[in-house]
């Protein structure tokens, strides 16, 4: 299986792990990630304003590129996924917006939201299948108590993201279980870590991040996994005293390709 | 807006048990729709003979809409299921003859759906107004 892949800015810099493990693991699962040529930054945040067009064009280009290859577009970073999925939804449902965008895109031809956008986790669940994943696990993580941290960007707004039940999601827990570990369920897993507020009011981000860690620990977590570099940054920077790792790293470890990557 | 505003003539056949009551509810709630819509009450949407529809077009109607109970909710158990088949066949035939398919419509509107009734009529009138006068059904025979 070949899919188009949008890595995003951070995955080529501060979150190289997230990217590399994603590649290695996909390979181990028989999926080829074909990186979008000349991809540009998604913008980090989706602007909900009806009249913002220019900031969404790079997402549309990525979507169109995948569409032309008749491939689903896969993202790993929660923020990229959120921005691209919301942009795609706007292209599908808001004809005024789509019209404006297509005028900008005139030279490249029109796009109307045909591409299917998958988060890497959704790819594992819907395209690969957690059962298949389970079979490919080499190093079982049995006995590890792992808490999934979704944050906000993967799940909301649910009317667009449609990844899972936004209040009681299970996709990451199912992922953890597929790798053989115990999934720790805690209520704050879908509460915001503070995101970019750490620029504006670091204390606020600290308060939010700490509450999340505390809640996960109270539920018995020994490790937290996340899909978002910013989440990881906030949780770690604000003093997480249990490991916070990217879910792809955990995946690579279970699939036995982690050492490869480091070598 | 044009000075000589075109007003279409719309005939709506409404089932006594659902959409006619739905139209009453729209009235009770003062949900406006254009006066171009004239309702004929029938006991069930299955009472609507294709002949009535063609007759309406023949006499100058620009659009005909049939409203019945939602499938499964027919007061007579199965009337609207027959309506659904009859009208699917008839509308497809009219389209086959080159007559604008937008001039005919079937909608399921329950007695509780006053808002849907008004919205449906507003939409249908807008669609038919955009099409303009019904010429084709009258003119099929005359070569221009």
């Amino acid at each position, binding site marked *: 299986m070949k899919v188009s892949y949008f890595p995003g800015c951070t995955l080529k810099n501060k979150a190289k792990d997230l990217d590399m493990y994603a590649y290695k693991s996909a390979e181990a699962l028989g999926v080829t990630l074909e990186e979008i040529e000349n991809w540009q930054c998604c913008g980090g945040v989706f602007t909900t304003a009806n009249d913002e067009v220019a900031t969404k064009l790079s997402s549309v280009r990525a979507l169109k590129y995948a569409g032309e290859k008749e491939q689903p577009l896969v993202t790993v970073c929660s923020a990229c996924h959120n921005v691209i999925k919301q942009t795609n939804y706007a292209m599908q449902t808001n004809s005024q917006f789509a019209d404006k965008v297509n005028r900008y895109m005139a030279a490249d031809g029109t796009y109307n939201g045909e591409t299917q956008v998958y988060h890497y986790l959704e790819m594992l669940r819907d395209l690969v299948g957690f059962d298949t994943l389970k079979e490919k696990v080499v190093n079982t993580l049995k006995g590890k108590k792992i808490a999934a941290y979704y944050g906000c960007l993967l799940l909301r707004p649910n009317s667009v993201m449609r990844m899972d039940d936004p209040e009681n999601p299970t996709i990451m827990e199912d992922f953890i279980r597929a790798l053989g570990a115990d999934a720790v369920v805690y209520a704050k897993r879908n509460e915001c870590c503070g995101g970019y507020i750490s620029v504006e009011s670091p204390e606020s981000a600290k308060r939010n991040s700490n509450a999340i860690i505390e809640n996960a620990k109270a539920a018995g977590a020994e490790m937290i996994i996340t899909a978002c570099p910013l989440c990881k940054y906030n949780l770690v920077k604000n003093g997480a005293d249990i490991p916070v790792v990217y879910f792809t790293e955990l995946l690579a470890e279970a699939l036995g390709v982690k050492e490869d990557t480091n070598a | 807006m044009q000075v000589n505003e075109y007003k279409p003539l719309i005939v709506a056949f409404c089932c006594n048990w659902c959409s006619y009551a739905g139209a009453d509810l729209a009235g009770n709630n003062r949900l406006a729709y254009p006066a171009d819509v004239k309702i004929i009450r029938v006991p069930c949407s299955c009472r609507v003979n294709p002949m009535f529809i063609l007759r309406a077009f023949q006499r100058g109607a620009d659009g005909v809409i049939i409203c019945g109970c939602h499938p499964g909710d027919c007061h007579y158990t199965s009337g609207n299921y027959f309506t*659904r088949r009859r009208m*699917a066949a008839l509308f497809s035939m009219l389209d086959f*003859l080159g007559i604008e398919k937008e001039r005919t419509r079937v909608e399921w509107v329950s007695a509780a759906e006053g808002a849907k009734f008004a919205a449906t009529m507003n939409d249908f009138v807008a669609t038919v107004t955009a099409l303009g006068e019904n010429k084709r059904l009258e003119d099929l025979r005359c070569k221009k």
Partner: protein
Amino acid sequence: MQKITREQLIQKASELLENGTVSAVLGWGIGEFDYDVTPTVFSTVEELRNGFVFNDFCGANFSKYLVKKTDKIEGKILVFLKPCDTYSFNQLLTEHRFDREKVYAVGIPCEGMADIAKVKAISGDGIAAIGSNGDKLTVTTLYADEPVVIAANDVLAERCINCKSKKHVAYDELMGEEGEVIESNRFDEVARLEAMTADERFAFWQNELSRCIRCNACRDACPACTCEKCVFDNPNSGVENKSPANEFEEKLFHIIRAYHVAGRCTDCGECSRVCPQNIPLHLLNRKFIKDMNDFYGEYQAGAEVGSRAPLVDYTTEDLEPGEVFDRRENNA
């Protein structure tokens, strides 16, 4: 060229008349011209010898005549049925239009009938005689010195080119060999029209229907149009009109006629065969048949007695009238 001959048919009819199985024979009678064949009732062997014909112009579907004739005759009536006629025969039985006990049906094979319009297009007018020889028709006209020889296949009627079945679905006795239901291309023309734009379709039908002279031949020949009183003849129906009163009327007539026979029409093609203006009326019926096949599953009227036509049936999951068009656009 038919595989069965006039002589064979006369012999069969005579036999059945003489042994008392039947008291009359419904067959093709000699007309003014060789191509002008008229449905006729024969009561004696002599009448048969003098008046019975069987040639490439015996397209008439006798099923409909049974509705009236079975009442008029004591005992059984013999009817010759080509494969396509047997569907109409069954359909009329489904609708209880005649008493099966009063009919002795003999199935005969059919190689397809000729379309006189096509013959005339080749031979020219003034046909004096048409002979049949092998797969050829020999046409003698008043104006040509030499008879024109035409390949029978070149003048096959449209409905025979698109023959849907060589199989008889009803008979008491079968002459010749039984055929099979055929995968025909009969819906191709409908599909071609469907693929046009609405404007093109409108222009097509405007051209066709504008020629209608409301002679009612289509209705009178149609084996599904056996109403005791047609709504168009009934002053109390509200739609009576024996001749068109305005531009709309033919359309109303043809749409309503097609609608009234929808689900009951066996696609025998009599309407188009008898139309003096050569309007392809069968396309209206085929459109309904094609749609109903598409929407509700394959259904062939008359294939079996007692089957329920799509328009007097339903399922709770039927598609919505509005979805009809989405479906077509998606298929396109």
